[in-house]
């Protein structure tokens, strides 16, 4: 039994300090928003210019000029603020975002992350990924443990184009919670029913 996507998001929510400023990447990280404790006082940052991003609008309340960095219609919570992109990336690059939760294609035992381009694949672009990875105080990665074809995403060293070097502090997958430790990954926690052996088999670097 490994964790579902919702369970990964729930586990990730536990990594968030009350009152902190958090940027959620596209995909799996977006789910974390639904699992923040109501009284946590967490502020979601969207790099297109929102601090205090709220849930999707009710049907009929969509405003084409209130979107998140994935260009989805969203809302702004009371106490939220809008600002230009230079201010937004000053916030990110200047270390004022406490935590960024990112998806990835590869993450390495040395903390490197590669989440913007697959060699030979269609170029999707960089967007805010490199700034978030380089500038946030802490980087948490949520990802499936392997690709759909069964290749390890937790690797010794990335061979996909890097997003940033040595920035990832923790990774949560369906198998558990892992920390990059240089030459391998340490196991912080395993999902119920997942054996260390299974984690070891599916990881592209030593479990240390």
């Amino acid at each position, binding site marked *: 039994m490994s964790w579902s996507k919702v369970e990964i998001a729930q586990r990730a929510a536990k990594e968030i300090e009350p009152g902190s400023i958090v940027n959620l990447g596209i995909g799996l990280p977006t789910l974390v928003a639904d699992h923040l404790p109501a009284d946590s006082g967490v502020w979601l940052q*969207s*790099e*297109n*210019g*929102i601090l205090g991003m709220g*849930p*999707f*609008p*009710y*049907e*009929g*309340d*969509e*405003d*084409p*000029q*209130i*979107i998140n*960095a*994935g*260009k*989805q*219609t*969203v809302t*702004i919570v009371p106490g939220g603020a*809008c*600002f*230009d*992109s*230079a201010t937004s*990336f000053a916030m*990110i*690059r200047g270390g004022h975002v406490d935590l960024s939760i990112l998806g990835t294609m590869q993450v390495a035992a040395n903390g*490197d992350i590669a989440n913007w381009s697959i060699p030979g694949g*269609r*170029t*999707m*672009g*960089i*967007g*805010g*990924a*490199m*700034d978030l990875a*380089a*500038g946030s105080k802490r980087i948490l990665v949520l990802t499936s443990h392997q690709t759909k074809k069964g290749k390890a995403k937790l690797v010794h060293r990335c061979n996909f*184009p*890097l*997003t*940033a*070097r040595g920035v990832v502090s923790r990774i949560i997958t369906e198998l558990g919670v892992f920390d990059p430790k240089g030459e391998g990954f340490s196991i912080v926690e395993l999902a119920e029913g997942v054996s260390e052996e299974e984690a070891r088999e599916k990881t592209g670097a030593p479990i240390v």
Partner: protein
Amino acid sequence: MTKVYQSVEDAISEIRDGARIMVGGFGLCGNAEALIAAVAESGVKDLTLISNNAGNLGKGLAAWLRADIVRKIFCTYVGNNEDLHKKMADGSVDVTILPQGTFVERMRAAGAGIPAFFTPTGVGTVVADGKEIREFDGREYVMERALHADFALIRARKVDPAGNIRFYRTARNFSPIMAMAAKMAIVETDELVGLGEIDPDDVHLPGAFIQRVVHVPEHEDTIEYRTVRTRSEVQS
């Protein structure tokens, strides 16, 4: 002395073949729709386009790509912009993809008289290839240069005849910075108000950074990804 022009055609009259043009908007959000359309129809060509997304869903700046008037693009994200994918694949447009923070900071530098700066973003990646790397206080940074333009085409919610601007929500994005970075910033505004109607503390971008204003009350404002929650979802 008013900066107000009576038509979008008049407002863009100085744009020539080969111009470098910054266009505000995050995808289709906050697009200067009328100015973008007017440039496409004006017959200018060989443009360098500086824009986060260069259109999407066949809309906005996609019109420039379809009209083959863009020779070079600086952007940060391609995503599902099929028009841009097509141009990249056939090699007819030279596309440079930048990290978004570096993209906007390079424009901010241009507007602020800063020719170059160092950033941690992109160190150890292809973005830093061929650029100077320098260590400050034990961390490596890459030197990035100011990114200038001849024109900026932006959208605002409210503007006065001096060019003082109020933006609305996330339609603000790159627009004020692009206005600062361009020699001529042209703004298309939902609402045109009188001098003094915007309180000095409510101005998002002072008129010093704006050269031309045109009033365009109606906009299409396409939503790229409509995401909603149902009321029952919450009531349950």
